[in-house]
């Protein structure tokens, strides 16, 4: 039976919609593992995904019990929700009931022999430089490369030469699908893709958007995967279409289950407390801004970790802080100094439009040369060690000869990580770091130098510069009142020996540090011509305002400012004062965050918390350098006055926005369709990794192994793990630190403005209607009343406000 290629491709595309893309470790992106189900209501989606992947959709009864005992679920709210479904039993009894209902849910049937063989060849083919001996024939594509080596595979005793296997991919499908009608293909494909959602998710990512050099050199598609898998199934007497592959994914049912009701009550309780807090904050007070010009204004990423440091900076003195997406609105690809690597430095839902390289500043060539010399030495050393380690003849002698040195280094890393941290700092001062002598290429190069080898122009046009600078201030609602120093502060994590480092870096920069983006926006805003254009557009930046870039180290809470020490752009005294205050804020923030990490540290001792964070930043055996975005639960869009002075416990994304400066709603529209959607991706990744760490997370770090430099497996094989490790979510085996709640967005804006935006954006309205995100609006035109969004574009005024101030907001 001839199969038309285009039809086959479409059937595979349809089947693959249920598989979430999986980014490689280098740029591990937060993503909803159930992204393919977002067109379904949440409850139905988790049922369908449960059928397909065997993962649970709601927290365990034990987690609900902990929340109940900690008082995080309001008894009145819970009772009311239960009553709506005719349930009148006591919560304790219901928790017991949920426990009893927890039967062993049947895991989806595993085609274990098939999975084993396939994983072996996938990990060989997709290897990105970890293997000493690469798989042959990879440039011909996965199916062809596998076909060439299959005769040597003991798992296929009946295949003794390649000619026994189908010649082409299409032949392979024709051979195995001949007995099945086209209407059944998708179900068959869904079953086989869902058998290894980690590997298929990675192939989906690589084959679609990635355009990586690895994909160019060694192409693979889901069609390759399916052709190999189905041929293997055929030759290994495994089912092409098992019973369950009749109608996948099965439809869910509408049911008011206990876990669903309990989760809703938990979320409503969190919402109620947060709104009580917000109600007590100053927005009801006079709207006029304070008269004093602040000493400095710092713009941070909306990341929940920024909430902590912002609070502590504001407590130091005349400082103001703002929140903006951490790629600072510049959709760029970044090529760090001295490397050929190009990384995407904008959110996963945005395509880069510009390439930014770093090059030595005009009078900094001497430092660049010094750096290059050390860098070349280090590269040669690494290459030599790798050769000696992997060469059969040299390995034994190398180990004999160098064992003492490496043993000493290992002991130092293990026993005195803090010392190594300080040594690292000292070396940084000795060998110039690239950010001290480079500048980003914000200008378009001369036509002769502007090779566009993948369509991305280097640098930005003047129009683009003005667009990004204006967008930043418009979205934040910040059009006047600029301090003498404004700092755009990206963020990045510091953690050695950690394959999940990028999950701790900036999510708005696709899992990379945000410092380079901050440098670009600061450079644009310092250009006279850009300021002039902004002035014509009503954004009046005084001549004495200087924009700086910095980076917040989220492990240690240290904030480094990228300034040229030899040619300070601001008065030294002002800079020193700022640095001192940032150091004080760091100490306070570190003490607060260390207190949440089960650390045996006497936070009363001067500097103890700081030293503990430094140890975590240098300790190669530390499984939890920091909490990342664990705890995230809300996304607040509004003026800082709304949240100023509140301790939001590092659980809130904070996006600055002023409804008064955005009459047509364009700024809010871009916040809701951009950063809010990314917030939902992050939140759902944390949610599902917490409720089922085996299915949607990545298990304990202790038993993880890196495969092919692309992903993580548990033990020595199996599927690629798709989500976050246990140590990033749980305080111990029993207790999650992350509270698995769906994202609550709170927007300070007129309700009809939000309505208009939702009417224009079906995809966004769908996320709300299907309850992947909750939304409450604080309507300043309706006496600051809170309105809860109800599916189908309707609103309900809040009725559960606290009767009396609860003393929050201190």
């Amino acid at each position, binding site marked *: 039976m001839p199969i038309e290629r285009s039809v086959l491709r479409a059937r595979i595309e349809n089947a693959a919609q249920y598989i979430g893309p999986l980014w490689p470790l280098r740029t591990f992106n937060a993503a909803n593992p159930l992204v393919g189900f977002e067109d379904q209501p949440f409850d139905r989606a988790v049922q369908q995904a449960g059928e397909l992947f065997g993962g649970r959709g709601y927290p365990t009864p034990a987690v609900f019990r902990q929340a109940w005992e900690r008082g995080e679920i309001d008894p009145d709210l819970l009772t009311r929700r239960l009553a709506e479904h005719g349930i009148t039993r006591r919560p304790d009894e219901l928790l017991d009931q949920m426990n009893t209902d927890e039967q062993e849910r049947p895991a989806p049937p595993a085609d274990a022999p098939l999975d084993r063989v396939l994983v072996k060849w996938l990990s060989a083919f997709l290897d990105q430089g970890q293997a000493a001996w690469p798989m042959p024939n990879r440039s011909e594509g996965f199916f062809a490369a596998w076909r060439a080596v299959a005769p040597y595979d003991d798992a296929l005793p009946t295949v003794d030469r390649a000619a026994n296997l189908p010649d082409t991919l299409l032949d392979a499908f024709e051979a195995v699908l001949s007995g099945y009608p086209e209407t059944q293909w998708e179900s068959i494909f869904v079953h086989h893709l869902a058998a290894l959602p980690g590997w298929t998710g990675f192939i989906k990512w690589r084959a679609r*958007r990635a355009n990586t050099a690895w994909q160019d050199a060694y192409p693979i598609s889901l069609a390759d995967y399916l052709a190999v898998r189905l041929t293997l199934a055929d030759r290994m007497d495994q089912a092409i279409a098992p019973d369950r592959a009749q109608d996948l994914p099965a439809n869910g049912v509408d049911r008011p289950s206990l876990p669903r009701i309990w989760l809703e009550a938990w979320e409503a309780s969190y919402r109620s407390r947060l709104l009580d807090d917000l109600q007590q904050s100053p927005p009801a007070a006079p709207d006029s801004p304070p008269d004093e010009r602040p000493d400095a204004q710092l713009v941070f990423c909306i990341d929940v970790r920024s909430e902590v440091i912002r609070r502590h900076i504001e407590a130091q003195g005349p400082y103001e802080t703002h929140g903006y997406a951490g790629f600072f*609105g510049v*959709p760029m690809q970044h090529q760090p100094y001295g490397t050929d690597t190009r990384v995407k430095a904008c*959110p996963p*839902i945005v395509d880069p439009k510009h390439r930014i390289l770093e090059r030595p500043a005009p009078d900094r060539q001497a430092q660049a040369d010094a750096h290059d010399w050390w860098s070349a030495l280090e590269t040669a050393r690494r290459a030599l060690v790798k050769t000696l380690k992997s060469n059969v003849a040299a390995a034994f002698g190398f180990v004999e000869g160098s064992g003492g040195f490496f043993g000493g280094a290992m002991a130092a890393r293990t026993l005195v990580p803090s010392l190594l941290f300080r040594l690292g700092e000292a070396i940084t001062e000795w060998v110039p770091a690239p950010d001290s002598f480079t500048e980003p290429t914000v200008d378009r190069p001369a036509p002769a130098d502007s090779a566009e080898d993948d369509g991305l122009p280097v640098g930005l046009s003047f129009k683009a510069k003005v667009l990004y600078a204006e967008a930043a201030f418009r979205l934040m609602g910040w059009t006047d009142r600029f301090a003498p120093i404004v700092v755009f502060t990206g963020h990045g994590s510091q953690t050695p020996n950690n394959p999940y480092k990028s999950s701790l870096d900036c999510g708005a920069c696709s899992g990379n540090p945000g410092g380079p983006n901050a440098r670009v926006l600061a450079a644009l805003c310092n250009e006279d011509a850009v300021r002039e254009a902004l002035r014509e557009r009503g954004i009046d930046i005084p001549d004495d305002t200087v924009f700086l870039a910095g980076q917040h180290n989220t492990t240690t809470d240290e904030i480094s400012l990228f300034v040229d020490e030899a040619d300070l752009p601001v008065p030294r005294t002002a800079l020193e004062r700022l640095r001192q205050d940032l150091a004080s804020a760091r100490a306070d923030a570190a003490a607060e965050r260390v207190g949440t990490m089960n650390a045996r540290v006497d936070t009363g001792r001067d500097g103890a918390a700081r030293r503990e964070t430094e140890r975590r930043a240098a300790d190669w055996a530390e499984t939890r350098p920091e909490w990342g975005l664990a705890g995230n639960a809300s996304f607040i869009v509004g003026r800082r006055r709304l949240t100023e002075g509140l301790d939001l416990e590092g659980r809130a994304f904070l996006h600055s926005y002023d409804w008064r400066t955005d009459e047509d709603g364009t700024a809010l*529209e871009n916040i809701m*369709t951009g950063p809010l*959607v990314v917030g939902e991706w992050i939140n759902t990744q944390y949610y599902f990794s917490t409720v089922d760490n085996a299915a949607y997370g990545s298990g304990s770090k202790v038993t993880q192994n890196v495969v092919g430099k692309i992903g993580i497996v548990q033990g020595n094989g199996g599927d690629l793990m798709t989500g976050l490790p246990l140590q990033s979510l749980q305080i111990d085996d029993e207790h999650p630190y992350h509270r698995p709640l769906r994202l609550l967005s709170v927007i300070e804006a007129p309700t009809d403005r939000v309505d208009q935006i939702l009417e*224009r954006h*079906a995809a966004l309205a769908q996320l709300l209607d299907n309850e992947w995100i909750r939304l409450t609006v604080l309507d300043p035109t309706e006496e600051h009343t809170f309105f809860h969004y109800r599916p189908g574009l309707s609103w309900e005024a809040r009725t559960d406000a606290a009767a009396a101030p609860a003393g929050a907001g201190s």
Partner: protein
Amino acid sequence: MSDPSTNADTDHTLHPLKKIEIIVRGEKEPFVKDLLDESKISGYTIHHNVTGRGEHGFHEGRLLFNDRDGLVMFFAVGGEESIQTIVNGLTPLFEESSGVMFVSETQVVRLDKFLKEE
């Protein structure tokens, strides 16, 4: 700039061909691109950030920070057989995801520009 080799054809004869217009969500852009690349048509045009209303509601195209949820429009011209291949590849896709395609008669002057040589 005209190609000298076709300048000889001075009578500007119009040749009948088929035109296909396709509108899909941004996330399906790579799929449609691959489909068109593998078909026998010689080229196509893409419009990003398309705005419009469909069965699932309105889609505003001008988004600063979201390239995934916007709409993308393709159009291509080719012979009946190659357009039919594209239609065959899109029909199953539209069973599951939103999008539309329109096929119409069109005419071109420089036929050789639209027929891909094997």
